[in-house]
């Protein structure tokens, strides 16, 4: 992509390599039992966990591939309706990076365990806070000094030139272009639809040897 004019010298943009979708392989593994509880029971469970362990921390991964010269985010679709990023809740005392690797392997690898998986976790690109479990997340801690109940950290994950993704059968893995998730909170929710804003400072090197 040319710019029609020289980029001014100075700050070099953080660069991210992305590879064509065709370099990746996709398979399926057995579904794991998703907690099929009703929303009210879930809120109750989260509240009692908060009483025992404090702030609930979730970690999510942004995995990028290239298609038609445009970055695409790997997004999981649950029950053919709602969308989520790979990731999930940290166990009490678990570090962000370890927890994210654990979740990525569980959702995207043949092995459920992360020990042999080579995930490259990059920088945190954004954070979201909830003041209650049933309310929307916001990109800042609650301004009224109330303790947040949940914090979600979004990390860039740097994919290698090729790898195999093995997805549990109850989830569908999609590659969605940035222009489709941009400003599309109705379909993807505030966290996924906000990803183009969190990634805008990066310059993407599309590595395509073909």
């Amino acid at each position, binding site marked *: *992509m*040319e*710019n*029609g*004019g*020289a*980029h*001014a*010298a*100075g*700050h070099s*943009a953080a660069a991210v390599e992305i590879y064509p979708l065709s370099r990746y392989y996709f398979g399926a593994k057995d579904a794991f039992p998703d907690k099929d509880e009703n929303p009210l029971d879930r809120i109750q469970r989260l509240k009692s966990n908060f009483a025992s362990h404090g702030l609930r921390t979730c970690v999510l991964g942004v995995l990028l591939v290239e298609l*038609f*010269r*445009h*970055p695409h985010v790997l997004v999981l679709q649950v029950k053919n309706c709602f969308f989520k990023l790979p990731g999930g809740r940290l166990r009490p005392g678990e570090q*962000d*990076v370890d927890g994210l690797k654990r979740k990525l392997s569980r959702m995207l690898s043949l092995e459920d365990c992360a020990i042999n998986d080579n995930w490259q*976790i990059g*920088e*945190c*690109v*954004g*954070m*979201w806070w909830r003041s209650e479990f049933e309310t929307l997340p*916001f*990109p*800042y801690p609650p*301004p009224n*000094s109330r303790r947040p109940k949940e914090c979600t950290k979004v*990390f860039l994950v740097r994919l290698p030139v090729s790898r195999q993704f093995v997805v549990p059968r109850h989830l569908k893995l999609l590659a969605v*272009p*940035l*222009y489709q998730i*941009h*400003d599309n909170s109705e379909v993807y929710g505030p966290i996924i639809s*906000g990803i*183009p*804003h*969190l*990634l*805008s*400072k990066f310059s993407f090197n599309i590595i395509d040897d073909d």
Partner: protein
Amino acid sequence: MVGSPMVNLYPLANYTFGTKEPKMEKDTSVSDRLARMKVNYMKEGMRTSVEAILLVQEHRHPHLLLLQIGNTFCKLPGGRLKPGENEIEGLKRKLCSKLAVNSPSFSPNWQVGECVAVWWRPNFETVMYPYCPPHITKPKECKKLFIVHLSEREYFAVPRNLKLLAVPLFELYDNVQRYGPVISTIPQQLSRFQFNLICS
């Protein structure tokens, strides 16, 4: 994993705001502005502009400094780079022009930090995107937002025709109608920073 980058935020009361001579906008309408942009593009190629995110603290919540023109239109301090100008030097030049006393000995020591957002203008129209849209090979403008770390105390001189506001992040978030797509998405772009809210 890299730890969250830190930013110190000082109370709004630590900063003094004086005035200086008016700095009028070069264009009186959106269509004039786009026409001038086209002329400049023919001469110099893609326009690169740089803008500053200046933050203070009030009631233990980060506030963004915005310049208000007239009764409603708000913008970040910044502007167009000269052809070949370094981004950081250009941003400092714009900050002095918009916010500093017109005297070299009283220039604030602007600490330009990292770039937090980049916006692209595909055509000579007002719409911009946080990525270069597919099939666009010749974008007309690239706008970069930088966080600028303020010192504990500072004296700003604001042009008489502009008002400097300190707006809380919760007021900007999702408020596209009032602040536009660039300013209303700054809270998400700042969410990864750890703010050290310093009270007086």
